[in-house]
């Protein structure tokens, strides 16, 4: 996956030279440019940027202001400062502000290129996967209680997104200009993605309150409605309380608290067929249609059957208080 590096400098000649110098690394990264901090923020909003290299002295918004804005809105994107300032303490000030690298002007283009390549390698240090089903993979991250930053590319549309996990909890998400739960819902609606995992998570504020499986349910609903097929859009995320499955999961989460043991939602033709057969048997036995079910198949997980949702089943931890759960299923 070729990454985007954003170079920010008001010196157009400098930008041109760097662009030409970096052409030999075109297989590793491509270069985007901006003339000042404000223009750089606009680029960040429109493109998936892996690294920013910025000058300090610029009109409108200088390098320090840009650094602060990146730390606020894009804390996962590393920033390298390049500066001709000779005043002592500039480098330590930049590092205190969050910069991961500093290079004093004048410098050899290859020296900066090596810093860039080093940083870009870190972005995928935890591995890269292609053609992955998003929901399953992310629930694995949750189960493994990983702290990581995951960058995803939707294989269908080419759209990109970032997810931030802290000890298995989804802290934040970003896709284009949107963040938080809306971004997570959009990303989860992507059916097949390529992703890279970076160990560590720079986000400290938990913007996402909803449980991961509920967000995935929201995303599934979007997909069912065909939103994903139209490119995902940036519309408002659908309400969590619309479908029977979502209502049920929300009710269980509310009643049992988090973590309530709910796992991933499975919608396979196998389960669908089986749920239909059981429901049909119920009618033959004068019991009416199947409304809910709790099944232990001997796997590590048990399952809640939700016939109203095309035979969907929700995996659930066997440790969940069964009687309380059954009571919720009946209500």
């Amino acid at each position: 996956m070729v990454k985007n590096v954003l170079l920010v400098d008001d010196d157009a000649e400098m930008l041109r030279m760097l662009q030409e110098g970096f052409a030999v690394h075109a297989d590793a990264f491509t270069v985007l440019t901006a003339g000042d901090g404000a223009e750089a923020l606009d680029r960040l909003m429109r493109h998936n940027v892996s690294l920013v290299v910025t000058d300090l002295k610029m009109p409108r918004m200088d390098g320090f202001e840009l650094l602060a804005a990146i730390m606020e809105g894009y804390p996962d994107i590393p920033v390298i400062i390049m500066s001709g300032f000779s005043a002592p303490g500039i480098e330590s000030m930049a590092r205190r502000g969050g910069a991961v690298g500093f290079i004093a002007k004048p410098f050899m283009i290859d020296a900066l290129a090596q810093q860039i390549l080093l940083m870009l390698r870190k972005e995928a240090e935890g591995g890269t996967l292609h053609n992955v089903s998003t929901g399953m993979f992310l629930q694995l991250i949750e189960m493994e209680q990983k702290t990581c930053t995951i960058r995803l590319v939707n294989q269908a549309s080419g759209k990109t997104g970032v997810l931030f996990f802290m000890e298995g909890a989804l802290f934040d998400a970003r896709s284009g200009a949107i963040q938080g739960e809306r971004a997570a819902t959009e990303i989860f609606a992507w059916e097949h993605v390529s992703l890279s995992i970076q160990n560590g998570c720079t986000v400290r504020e938990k913007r996402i309150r909803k449980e991961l499986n509920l967000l995935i349910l929201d995303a599934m609903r979007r997909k069912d409605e065909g939103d994903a097929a139209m490119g995902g859009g940036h519309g408002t995320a659908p309400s969590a309380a619309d479908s029977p499955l979502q209502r049920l999961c929300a009710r269980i989460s509310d009643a049992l608290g988090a973590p309530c043991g709910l796992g991933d939602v499975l919608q396979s033709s196998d389960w669908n067929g089986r749920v239909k057969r059981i429901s049909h048997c119920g009618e033959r036995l004068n019991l009416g249609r199947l409304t809910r079910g709790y099944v232990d198949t001997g796997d590590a997980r048990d399952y809640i059957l939700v016939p109203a949702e095309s035979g969907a089943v929700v995996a659930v931890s066997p440790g969940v208080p069964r009687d309380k759960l059954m009571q919720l299923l009946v209500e």
Partner: protein
Amino acid sequence: MREVFAGLLAVDGVKGVLFFSPAGDLLFEEFTINAATRPLVRDWRALLDAAAGFREAELLFEKGRIYLRDAGEGTLMVATGLIAPSAMIRLNCDILIPSLKQLKSAKGLRRFFRR
């Protein structure tokens, strides 16, 4: 061998108990409801087939519930009304399943259950 299932049949809300062999033969059935309104055995067997591979299941239907339990020596099905003490039913099954195993090891289940 009704005694084995007596405790289970006495639980409030239980309308019937069925026990099938692993091959799907009905080894025991008893209902607390009128025989004329009982479903056919083949319909219970169809449910048994649909639930193949389930170790335990609580199935909620519009007008009643079925508790299904793999007992090793066969499958137990407990039919109840919509409101039933499921924990009590599970407990009764926990208690009676070892008795089924003992019966089988002693003389063979088929000899003790009404067909």
